[in-house]
């Protein structure tokens, strides 16, 4: 047994035991990985086509010093950002990603701030509260914000809303009878609600498995709902008639989400890895862009790790066109994106990044 100045005693038996402990601990984790069904470990059974020059490098990038941002809207000259932790502060950047101004939309009321989403469709700002099912309308310009309260006790509760106009909205409403989400169209000053019962389909619990992104684009007059956990999106007209249902290119027809009821409360919670088949989507230029987390069989694993893959679909019929990559800022995660013309603006954790879609 040797003992050095520091007082450590290196006996052979100690070192052997330590070695065994290390080996055993690491092996157990490797075994867990081998036994587990980690996403993209096995082949997913689909292929991607790529556009020319598929790997887009950032044209501009800007550190935001904080995570939790999302894009609330794009106007011709500005990018509007909101933060989940303080949603009533609207940040404005130009397309060279210079910070222009920050704008306090209104005083925060008693409502929980986490439940608030802000959408900017110049010249309007929509403040949507998912908890109270209220929408407040503000103007981007002028100091006194004309506030049009929007809340009607006869309207259903909703958890997502997309404005068609300052007075009409498509919402993802809670249907208490069917016990699931349904799409609905509501309007201010009008108590009539138009429901679409054939759009959203329940696979597990009707809420968590139906979760997805509700999009609307005025140019094509198209409402799109993209499911997060299954390979489907639905196209509706602005009167909520289903135009088509289409599948994204991967093979996850059925949501693999595990859902568990929590005994101590009335809530249900996700109890499986949250694998976003279609993590983020946006409509622009007559196309639907979907950021997918699924790796294709013909995809280079290293490239898939270095970038975020975006699949393009034709908005007319939901046909898959091709895919491209957005380069990743370090090891950051992808949070959100929007497109205006040829500019793709993305949020990657604490970074705002702009890509050029031309060439």
């Amino acid at each position: 047994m040797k003992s050095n100045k520091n007082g450590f005693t290196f006996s052979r038996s100690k070192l052997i035991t330590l070695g065994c402990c290390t080996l055993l601990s690491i092996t157990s984790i490797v075994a867990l990985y081998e036994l587990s069904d980690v996403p993209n470990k096995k082949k997913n059974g689909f292929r991607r086509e790529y556009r020319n020059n598929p790997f887009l490098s950032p044209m501009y990038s800007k550190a935001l010093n904080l995570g939790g941002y999302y894009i609330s809207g794009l106007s011709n000259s500005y990018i509007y950002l909101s933060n989940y932790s303080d949603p009533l502060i609207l940040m404005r950047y130009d397309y060279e990603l210079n910070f222009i101004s920050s704008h306090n939309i209104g005083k925060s009321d008693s409502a929980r701030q986490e439940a608030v989403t802000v959408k900017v469709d110049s010249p309007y700002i929509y403040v949507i509260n998912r908890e109270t099912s209220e929408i407040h309308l503000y103007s981007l310009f002028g100091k006194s914000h004309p506030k049009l309260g929007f809340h009607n006790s006869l309207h259903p509760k909703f958890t997502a809303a997309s404005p068609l106009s300052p007075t009409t909205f498509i919402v993802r409403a809670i249907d208490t009878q069917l016990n699931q989400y349904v799409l609905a169209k509501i309007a201010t000053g009008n108590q009539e609600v138009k429901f679409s019962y054939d759009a959203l389909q329940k696979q597990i619990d009707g809420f968590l498995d139906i979760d997805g992104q509700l999009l609307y684009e005025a140019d094509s007059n198209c409402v799109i709902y993209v499911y997060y956990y299954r390979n489907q999106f639905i196209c509706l007209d602005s009167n909520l008639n289903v135009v088509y249902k289409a599948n994204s290119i991967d093979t996850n027809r059925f949501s693999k989400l595990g859902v568990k009821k929590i005994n101590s409360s009335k809530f249900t919670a996700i109890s499986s890895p949250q694998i976003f088949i279609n993590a983020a989507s946006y409509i622009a230029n007559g196309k639907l862009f979907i950021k997918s987390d699924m790796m294709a069989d013909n995809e280079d694993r290293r490239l898939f790790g270095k970038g975020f893959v975006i699949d393009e679909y034709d908005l007319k019929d939901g046909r898959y066109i091709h895919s491209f990559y957005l380069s990743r800022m370090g090891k950051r995660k992808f949070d959100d994106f929007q497109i205006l013309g040829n500019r793709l603006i993305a949020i990657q954790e604490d970074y705002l990044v702009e890509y050029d879609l031309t060439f």
Partner: protein
Amino acid sequence: MKKTLIVNVIASLLILLFVYTGTSKLLGFEKFRIELSKSPLLTSFAGWVAWIIPVVEIVVAIMLAMPRFRLIALYGSFSLMVMFTAYLIAILQFSFYIPCTCGGVIQSMSWSAHIVFNCFFIFLSLSAILMYPRKTNTDVDTQIHLNKKLNYLSR
């Protein structure tokens, strides 16, 4: 003796860590189990891993408090911390939702801070093992005590 004192301090720190994280897991058991099942590595084993981890943590803490089992418990803490760190590194490879279920304040640490924190405790338990004398006074004491007991019983 200085060495014994350092070993005792390290053992106390480890006891504090394991009792804290173990009990906070058990107190929020339901949430802990659900968080575990969201982990791509643990989803199919979440049911029993959710029990084993806090129970092992508390057992190791109790053993650390008992001089007789202190060395074994130090090996146990070392293995646990190596395992947690290996898990962290493995899970960071996936860009999906990464659940953290360490419980309490520790949960609010960033990933890099978490790895540094774990490495610090690996280092501590490693040092304690290497500093652990062949036989401490307390060990000898218990040995004598046991012998007396045995003598008494066999009489």
